[in-house]
């Protein structure tokens, strides 16, 4: 999996490309988010539209990093979940926890206006 990183204000957008599965993309995602949290970047949007495959280990890593970021005082929002991703989140009842968005502006705005105009 590849991760393309960019910033909008103090919100970091992570575009995930490829497989998010056991020992494939899950470790890359873990390391990327751990680094961002260490740098104080805790307002994260994960763009899921280019995730080609997602398994339970990938979902587990999403949840684990969601908790990591929450403990650091931030949050992760999910952008462009594919139908399949949405279905898996629903099955695992994570749609009751995660915030999902269909457009980037709304995802960024959900962190509050200071996010857009900051930095």
């Amino acid at each position, binding site marked *: 999996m590849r991760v393309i990183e960019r910033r909008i204000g103090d919100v970091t957008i992570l575009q995930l490309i490829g497989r998010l599965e056991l*020992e*494939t993309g899950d470790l890359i995602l873990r390391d990327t988010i751990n680094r961002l949290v260490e740098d104080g970047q805790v307002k994260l949007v994960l763009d899921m539209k280019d995730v080609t495959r997602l398994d339970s*280990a990938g*979902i587990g*890593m999403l949840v684990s990093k969601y908790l990591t970021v929450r403990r650091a005082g931030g949050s992760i929002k999910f952008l462009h979940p594919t139908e399949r991703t949405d279905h898996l989140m629903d099955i*695992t*009842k994570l749609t009751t926890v995660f915030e999902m968005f269909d457009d980037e502006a709304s995802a960024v705005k959900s962190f509050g206006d200071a996010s857009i105009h900051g930095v």
Partner: protein
Amino acid sequence: MAQPPFGRRILVVDDDRGLRHVLSELLQGAGHTLATAGDGPEALEMLGDGSGFDLVLLDIGLPSMSGLDVLARIRTMESPPLVIVMTADDTSATLLEAVRRQAYRYIRKPFPPSAIIEVVSEAGTPASALSIEVISAKPEWLELVAPCTLEMADRIQSFVLHLEAHLPEAVLEAVASAFRELLTNAIEWGGKFDPNRKVRISCVRTNRLLLYRIADPGEGFDIDKLRHAAITNPDDDPMRHLQVREEQGLRPGGFGLAMTRSLVDDLIYNEARNEVILIKYLDEGE
């Protein structure tokens, strides 16, 4: 999973000059070293003992010598490269023969550029390639025995799901996800990622159902002690099991069983829970 070397030495064997050119440009652009051959005899001459190449992208419908025969010859070489079979022939007989002759992966033409890049980048090295033992290669009963590695899970999933490529996308995705979860469970927890241990996979197909049986070499598990799995979570706390996993030093996860139960029609474990059967019922004609 160990990361394979980035730049591979690849031989493309196809009688379609245009496709050879496109694949060469594409894969060279991705950092690989390419050579091409237009038929089987030319390919075998270029390959020699096989040591000069890591991967062969092999068309099946070649003139003068079938790709399956080329594959069989490659497998007898002193240092056989991995062979990724690519073909427009979507009959299960061709796929099963490719499995029997130890093709590494199978990709159906036409394929998007990203698919071939992904398959090549995921391929292991010839030295690390392990064999799949073919017990039965009938379309209605495929049975394989394979070492417990994640690379093997990718290969087996690729073969098994190509057999069902005609199914509606939603059915195929559900079956693919469920099969993947159970297979990786068997390889990780039952087989401990140990290539010396084996997992046995049976895929039985009728007009009315798909049945997959996966037997792992582990001791099984006690479902009452699965506090680290999402199936034990209360409805209002879908992440509770993650704390248990953290305490037990387990990687993040635990959603596999909950996912699988929702994706297929029946999920049946044996008494020890080291063998599992999943069933997906099909509408007639699927």
